[in-house]
């Protein structure tokens, strides 16, 4: 069952080339970001080489919080809306959530690494980290609901509701955790580092970082979408097998008391 097999192709050949192009562009941009970030740009006066994380942590966070979550939420709304309902949106939503889980976990890891030398601990209840951690749990909740065995329509319905409830919660979580900090301690260390004093080659590298990770997200989204389509094909063929087994239950015809036997249920 190769992707080139026309019966299973999740999209047109032209789309396959677009996705390949995305992958190549993402790889190139990422390589450029790493090269620029690690070698070309200067270290910070205060944070020395640690500041190089600024080229990947904010872009990853942006992808996780806004892109992935935004796509998941928008797809869920479009699926729930009867006029635009289509399996495409359901598949897109689950792909966005799964890729989002990867990016959210990476946000936490890079944020934690960044904070460790400054704070001395692996985890601090920083506003951003805390709300990101909560976001990760919300995304995991989506996947938990997804695993419940159900027909595709019910599963899509429940998943879409979870995505919406979580999406609506995200801004509330942000505000509450932000206030939790600013009302007590003032701005966090990380926030201070993202102030717009980045300029020159650092600014360009940062921008490239955003572009690179956005491309990476788009490519991973497409790949995950294809996996979902293939998985549905597999389930359909499993269903065919199950149907045949079900029909086998009824191969021995059941004659009525008067011997009459009809194939359909239409009235005589």
């Amino acid at each position, binding site marked *: 069952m190769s992707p080139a097999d026309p019966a299973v192709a999740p999209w047109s050949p032209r789309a396959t080339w677009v996705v390949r192009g995305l992958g190549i562009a993402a790889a190139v941009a990422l390589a450029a970001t790493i090269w620029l970030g690690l070698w070309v740009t200067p270290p910070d006066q205060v944070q020395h080489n640690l500041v190089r994380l600024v080229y990947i942590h904010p872009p990853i966070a942006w992808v996780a919080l806004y892109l992935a979550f935004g796509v998941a939420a928008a797809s869920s709304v479009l699926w729930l809306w009867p006029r635009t309902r289509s399996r495409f949106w359901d598949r897109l939503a689950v792909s966005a959530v799964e890729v989002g889980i990867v990016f959210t976990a990476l946000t936490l890891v890079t944020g934690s690494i960044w904070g460790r030398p400054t704070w001395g601990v692996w985890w601090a209840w920083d506003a951003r980290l805390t709300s990101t951690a909560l976001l990760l749990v919300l995304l995991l909740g989506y996947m938990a609901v997804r695993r419940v*065995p*159900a*027909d595709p*329509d*019910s599963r899509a319905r429940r998943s879409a509701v979870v995505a919406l409830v979580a999406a609506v919660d995200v801004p509330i979580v942000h505000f509450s955790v932000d206030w939790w900090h600013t009302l007590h301690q003032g701005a966090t260390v990380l926030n201070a580092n993202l102030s717009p004093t980045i300029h020159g080659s650092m600014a360009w590298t940062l921008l490239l970082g955003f572009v690179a990770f956005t491309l990476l997200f788009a490519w991973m989204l497409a790949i995950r979408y294809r996996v979902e389509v293939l998985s549905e094909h597999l*389930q359909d063929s*499993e*269903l065919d097998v*199950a*149907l045949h087994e*079900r*029909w*086998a*239950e*009824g191969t021995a*015809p*059941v*004659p*009525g*008391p*008067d011997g*009459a*036997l*009809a194939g*359909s*249920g*239409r*009235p*005589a």
Partner: protein
Amino acid sequence: MAPAVLLTTAVCVTGRFPALAGVDLAVAQGEVVVLEGPNGAGKTSLLRVCAGLLPLTGGEGTVLGCDLRRDAPALRRRVGMLGHAAALYDDLTVAENVRFAVRAAGASPSHIDAVLDRLELGGRVRRTQVGRLSAGQRRRVALAVLVTRRPELWLLDEPHAGLDAGARAVLGEIVSEVVAEGATVLLASHEPEESLPLADRVVSLVGGRVVGVRDVGAPARRVVAVEKLRSVPGSVHVA
């Protein structure tokens, strides 16, 4: 007249299991159809599909003029179902349960006393909490709920199970009456002696598909039908 139920190659998959594997069924308005078949054949699933509770995975279905894929919520309030488990609240009394169900359906609970008396649920039983009743009495309460709501389509899943002879007789009368008023009845039953006298047709279900249909002609109902013929516009045959 449009059929009350029309299913074309209906496929219904619950989880990974195809409960219905391609059912073709047409039931005319005012008919009583009995579903028979071995355990696991899909009788309950078929009834639930007709109630709009189970979505169709494949095929088409129209019940009471509502498309099963699009208008299921609108269909559900016009349908009455007597399932395996009575959907009753154990902590409320019989009267409270029936009154709630009637008001939920948008009707006024004015004639529930007569119905309760008919099903031998009057007097002290009325004020007893449903959780304290026997299984047979609980079935009667569920039946009372259906009778007071008077839906257009009755879906009865093993209605005779748990009912004593008296209640079975009352059920038979009720079926005859509502059919004479134009309702359609779908019955799943393992007890042909009880259900065949009421039936117009018997549909045999095996492995999620219809394997046989036979006309039976409802001998017990013909008597009632003759008397009600004057008030019902020609939807009931009299041989």
